[in-house]
């Protein structure tokens, strides 16, 4: 518990970003939903359309909604030019605003529909214009119900804003995602406490405003509004004067190796006098397009990933040919500079517990062919959709009894606890050695190679200083060194390291 209290002060800037993002989304949602509700109150068709649309948005998982704005904004660059941000604040704001619409809209429409008929007739009878009727009668009488909707929207939005991390917007999701991937539970809990605390505080403040409106107490209403405004202003102030000069942004996908390499790259650039920023825990699908569009500047990607996902190839021409093809393809199509290979592979490999493999007499994928029916295979969330899996399945005729998805860090636990018999492991993962796992041979060569490549965005592709700072990393990291660093971050005992510490040790080991 003490760890959590120590971590909380360090989250102040994430909290400020979280407050600014959530408040902007709710504010924007109010600006859209309230006039729409007035319109809906005058037209049943608009009412039905607006409410079904808002409900439809709610059925999309928040994580997917956030990710969908990336390609959408990317395609909108054709209209608004290259300056349109595709990651970070803008897409997060848009997705969260859509999410906040429904409760505000629904409560505002319901409040209007439930206004006393007699009161509305009296408003006409005393000679109010439509506008006077709205301002003097409908708005004040609906206000407490609308406020209740805004409260609901605020709690949802503050919760969903933690997911903004996946599209590169700093938020209280940063410690949660980073902590989940590196099994740093104190960090996860600190992030959760902070966002839950924020949601509770917002809910109570807005409740005071709601009660103030219902009891027509100006003191409660304006007092509540003043405290909310102060909180938002403080967050804006804490965020500082906004972006001055653009820093070099280093991306990492959501697993330990990526966090470590991002820190390693960042440390080298800082030593060379550059200012850097990290976008940790990005969705795997987002990273490649984000580098290509210079939304981020540096990423580490893997040959096999690019080969299948972006070149859409399913053949396997061998390790070297694959790399040179990708390097030329990137230069030709996206303008991304592939600086080189770091020296290790993080390929998919199938792993089993040693005792289980021995009992079943399995040493290679070919041995599984007849036995898979009684076994459970575990994979990361995208694995069973990937062409590698389809290639392996077809090459060895594998029909597993059950297949289950696990977050990468939990796959190994699942293997230990027997919830999975075979998992799709990664060759650079430290836990293969630590858990004494058996990696099954691939005699048919169905799995492609996964050399780690250093990718530079078109924006910095020609920056000689950056290239000079990063060139020594090429070919410098062996798979053993990477495994050791990954294990140091993933382990749960006293030798557990943060990604930054692991990156320092890795740099020393690599002689940098």
């Amino acid at each position: 518990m003490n760890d959590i209290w120590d971590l909380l002060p360090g989250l102040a800037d994430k909290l400020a970003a979280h407050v600014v993002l959530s408040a902007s989304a709710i504010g924007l949602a109010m600006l859209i939903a309230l006039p729409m509700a007035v319109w809906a109150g005058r037209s049943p068709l608009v009412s039905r359309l607006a409410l079904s649309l808002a409900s439809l948005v709610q059925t999309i998982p928040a994580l997917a909604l956030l990710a969908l704005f990336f390609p959408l904004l990317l395609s909108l660059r054709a209209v608004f030019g290259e300056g349109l941000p595709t990651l970070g604040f803008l897409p997060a704001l848009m997705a969260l605003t859509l999410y906040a619409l429904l409760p505000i809209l629904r409560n505002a429409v319901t409040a209007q529909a439930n206004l006393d008929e007699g009161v509305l007739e009296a408003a006409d009878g005393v000679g109010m214009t439509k506008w006077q009727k709205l301002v003097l009668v409908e708005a004040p009488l609906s206000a407490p119900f609308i406020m209740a909707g805004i409260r609901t929207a605020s709690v949802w939005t503050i919760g969903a804003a933690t997911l903004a991390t996946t599209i590169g917007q700093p938020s209280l999701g940063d410690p949660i995602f980073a902590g989940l991937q590196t099994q740093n539970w104190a960090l996860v809990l600190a992030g959760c406490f902070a966002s839950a605390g924020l949601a509770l505080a917002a809910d109570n403040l807005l409740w005071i405003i709601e009660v103030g409106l219902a009891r027509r107490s100006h003191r409660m209403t304006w007092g509540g509004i003043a405290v909310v405004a102060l909180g938002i202003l403080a967050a804006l102030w804490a965020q500082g004067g906004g972006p001055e000069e653009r820093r070099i942004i280093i991306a990492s996908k959501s697993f330990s190796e990526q966090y470590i390499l991002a820190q390693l790259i960042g440390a080298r650039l800082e030593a060379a006098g550059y200012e850097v920023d990290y976008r940790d825990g990005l969705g795997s699908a987002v990273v490649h397009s984000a580098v290509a569009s210079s939304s981020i500047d540096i990423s580490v990607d893997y040959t096999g990933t690019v080969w299948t996902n972006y070149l859409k190839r399913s053949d396997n021409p061998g390790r070297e040919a694959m790399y040179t093809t990708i390097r030329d393809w990137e230069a030709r199509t996206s303008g991304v500079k592939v600086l080189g290979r770091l020296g290790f592979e993080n390929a998919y490999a199938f792993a089993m517990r040693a005792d289980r493999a021995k009992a079943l007499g399995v040493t290679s994928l070919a041995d599984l062919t007849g036995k898979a029916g009684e076994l459970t295979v575990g994979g990361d969330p995208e694995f069973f959709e990937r062409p590698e899996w389809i290639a392996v399945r077809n090459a060895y005729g594998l029909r597993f009894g059950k297949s289950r998805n696990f977050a990468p860090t939990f796959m190994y636990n699942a293997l230990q606890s027997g919830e999975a018999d075979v998992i799709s492991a990664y060759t650079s993962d430290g836990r293969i050695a630590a858990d004494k796992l058996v990696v099954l041979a691939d005699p048919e060569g169905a799995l492609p190679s996964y050399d780690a490549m250093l990718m530079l965005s078109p924006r910095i592709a020609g920056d000689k200083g950056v290239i000079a700072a990063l060139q020594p990393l090429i070919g410098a990291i062996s798979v053993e060194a990477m495994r050791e660093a990954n294990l140091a971050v993933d382990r749960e005992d006293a030798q557990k390291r943060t990604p930054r510490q692991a990156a320092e040790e890795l740099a020393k080991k690599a002689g940098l």
Partner: protein
Amino acid sequence: METPAPLLRFDGVICRFGEVTAVGTEVGGVSCDIAAGSFVALVGASGSGKSTLLKTVNTLVHPSEGRVLFGGEDVSTLKPARLRRRVGYVFQGIGLFPHFSVAENIAIGPRLAGEKLPPERIAELLALVELDPAFAKRMPDELSGGQRQRVGVARALAGGPELLIMDEPFGALDPVTRDALGRKVRELHERLRLTTVMVTHDMAEALLLADRVLVMDRGALVADESPRALLAGAGGTVAQRLASVPREQAERLAAMEREG
């Protein structure tokens, strides 16, 4: 003797809502003059079109055909806000604004016209409907039904209207309150020299308060008589069916008294 120009004139008024014709018939619309100073009751069964016809006066309903003249001017050419200040409106739903105090409710019409009613005027209006000046600060939900409708009447009178139109004004009140408030309105009608049109389905109320009774049936005006003439059997079948109810009730009550 020369007849004064009517304050209110319905001239061939027909009101249609889609397929339904609420006021008027195939033969033609409703035409009728109402003289300044008269107290007219508009009586009919539910759905006879009496409320709809009344609402054409303050343009809450717009006639599909024909026109309504108020002081010689077509009401559709007058600004609604100004027209509604000159026409006090009291209706069954009362419709006091729950977020306004009694004083604010009474003062709303003048306020919309940019005029602020002084507290003395509020007290005066409250006195007219026999409410203590202390009521000014209360909120509507602190009042009884009868008190609320008294405030409703005071609100209708606040702008100093020439015409008072009332749509089932006492419909939701208990019989004792109803009788007291009816008498009060009649008294105010005399005192303030108002012209009053009251819609009601209760013929007894119409006969006791009005000096002229119009009877409507399925959109048409079927009788236009004084209360005395109606009691004497004039006005045709629909009017007599309505008038027979209170007459027979009165006779039965009188008989009970004799036997008792």
